[in-house]
């Protein structure tokens, strides 16, 4: 049990975030050192403001949304393997988003697409709770998540395949393999309010998540309303994760890795993990996004692929460690 002195971890994560943000603005196919940047007349100015700044802001927002969603889902389910990507919540958001494309509703307004993505994510959380139960053990939660994920991914492919859409296969990739590339400030503006609102709801679950350490009965005996907590989680993850997926597509494993890393520094108390997980999520996604820009080929690797390459072995390691603990 390690305890950090007060807010040392948060300050460190914020410092790292500032450094990564600066790097993220400079790094890419062309290296643009901020110190040598001219004013708005400089052609590189456009690269920074139109491409890299939105990309950086989006990385911070989406990473924070995923990290915080993962930490609160893990606290709520008392399951250290919970993650919006792994459990299919993000895929449900993608399905919601794609439905607007299939029904040809998204033309003109990104809001409807975002709304349906958020609805999809919230439905995903509720389905998980219904199928596995809020106190479902790790295995039943994962199985429910695997099934949800498969159904939602198939739904995405089906909806895009049936739509009169010549780019169906590339669209499927876009949604199921999320990326931060080529996003604009409009995407940032679309996602930000919902990510902030969802984040606020998730932060409000802190005391209830702590009480749930004692299980459902224990938490109820402490005066915690399980229904209210469930509503906050479903709405909070719906808003934060749904809005994130609406602008980037599915990016998994951030919410899985980040709370584990944070626990090494501040212990396992669920409420204590929330803010550092948001910060560390932003750090992780930003760092991964800077790395994929360095891939030497013409088509850069999607950041979700990089996260999966990092996250899947991590997940496997966790499973093995958990089995050892149980054995």
């Amino acid at each position, binding site marked *: *049990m390690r*305890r950090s002195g007060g807010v040392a971890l948060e300050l460190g994560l914020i410092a790292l975030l500032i450094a990564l943000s600066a790097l993220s603005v400079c790094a890419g196919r062309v290296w643009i050192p901020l110190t040598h940047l001219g004013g708005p007349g400089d052609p590189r100015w456009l690269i920074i403001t139109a491409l890299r700044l939105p990309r950086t802001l989006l990385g911070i927002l989406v990473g924070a949304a995923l990290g915080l969603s993962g930490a609160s889902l893990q606290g709520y389910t*008392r399951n250290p393997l919970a993650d919006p990507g792994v459990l299919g919540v993000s895929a449900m958001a993608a399905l919601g988003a794609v439905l607007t494309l299939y029904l040809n509703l998204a033309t003109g307004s990104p809001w409807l697409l975002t709304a349906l993505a958020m609805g999809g994510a919230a439905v995903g959380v509720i389905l998980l709770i219904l199928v596995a139960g809020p106190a479902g053990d790790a295995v039943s939660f994962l199985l429910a998540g695997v099934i949800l994920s498969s159904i939602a991914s198939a739904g995405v492919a089906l909806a895009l395949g049936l739509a009169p859409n010549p780019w169906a296969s590339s669209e499927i990739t876009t949604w199921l393999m999320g990326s931060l590339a080529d996003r604009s400030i409009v995407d940032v503006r679309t996602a930000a309010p919902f990510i902030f609102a969802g984040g606020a709801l998730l932060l409000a679950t802190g*005391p209830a998540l*702590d*009480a*749930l*350490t*004692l*299980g459902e*009965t*224990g938490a*109820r*005996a*402490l*005066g*915690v*309303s399980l229904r209210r907590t469930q509503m906050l989680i479903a709405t909070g993850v719906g808003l934060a994760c749904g809005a994130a997926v609406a602008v980037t597509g599915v990016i998994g494993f951030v919410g899985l890795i980040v709370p584990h890393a944070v626990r090494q520094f501040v*212990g*396992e*108390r*669920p409420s204590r993990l929330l803010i550092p997980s948001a910060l560390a999520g932003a750090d992780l996604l930003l760092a991964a996004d800077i790395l994929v820009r360095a891939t030497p080929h013409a088509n850069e690797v999607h950041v979700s692929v990089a996260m999966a390459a990092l996250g899947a072995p991590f997940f496997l390691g966790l499973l093995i460690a958990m089995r050892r603990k149980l054995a």
Partner: protein
Amino acid sequence: MGKAITDLRAEGVSVSLGGRDILTDISLAFAPGRVTAILGPNGAGKSTLLSCLVGLRAPRRGRVTLEGSAILKLSARERAKRIAYLPQTPEIAWGLDVRTFVRLGRTAHRGVFGESAADAFAVGAALKSTGLSDFAARDIRTLSGGERARAHIARAFAGEPDWVVADEPLTGLDLGHQLDAADLLKAAAARGAGVVVSVHDLGFAARACDRIVVMMEGQILSDGPPAEALTAEVLAKAYGVDAHWVAGESGPLLDVIARRSLS
């Protein structure tokens, strides 16, 4: 526990689960400042009765009242402030340090600004009274069974409740730790709290409790001070054992002789 102490009462409580009657028309009143043991064979309905008493289960008929008001009408927070409940086989999902764990007992007291001075004081007092001050920084999951039982009791005490309702808090503890836990519950009663515990150990119940309620098949078989409630007839009926009271050095002792043949 300075506020006016209240009275906890079950009035004609009936519960059925899956078509089976678990509790039938139970009426009991619990006085503050006393330790009451609920005894009975497995499946007698002890746990169900306790979960009704703490307002976590709504009876099919009848009601539970706390100081005259229906417990299910109280807000969850108000109820949790006044009654601490220790469930059977409590789950501990995360490796909290002992102080943070005990602090959970203050959940219903917490304001929006986190832990107050009163919270910190109550947690410190609960750790001290259970002898856990030196363990405050330890991971709860590294404690032994006996230490962990004390941590659960400390968690209950931290909320400064008028009532402590505990479902088999002594099960699985060795003799010394059973006595420790029993002493803590008796001390809470001495401070004015009402204590209701379900237990399996007849000898313990006879020694440590002011009053014993013996349940069987969802009904009350006997109710009173230990020597009156635990007669040979009651024990034969409830547990199917032959037992009688013998004179011991520190008072009467219950001597269980043999299992009656199952007929």
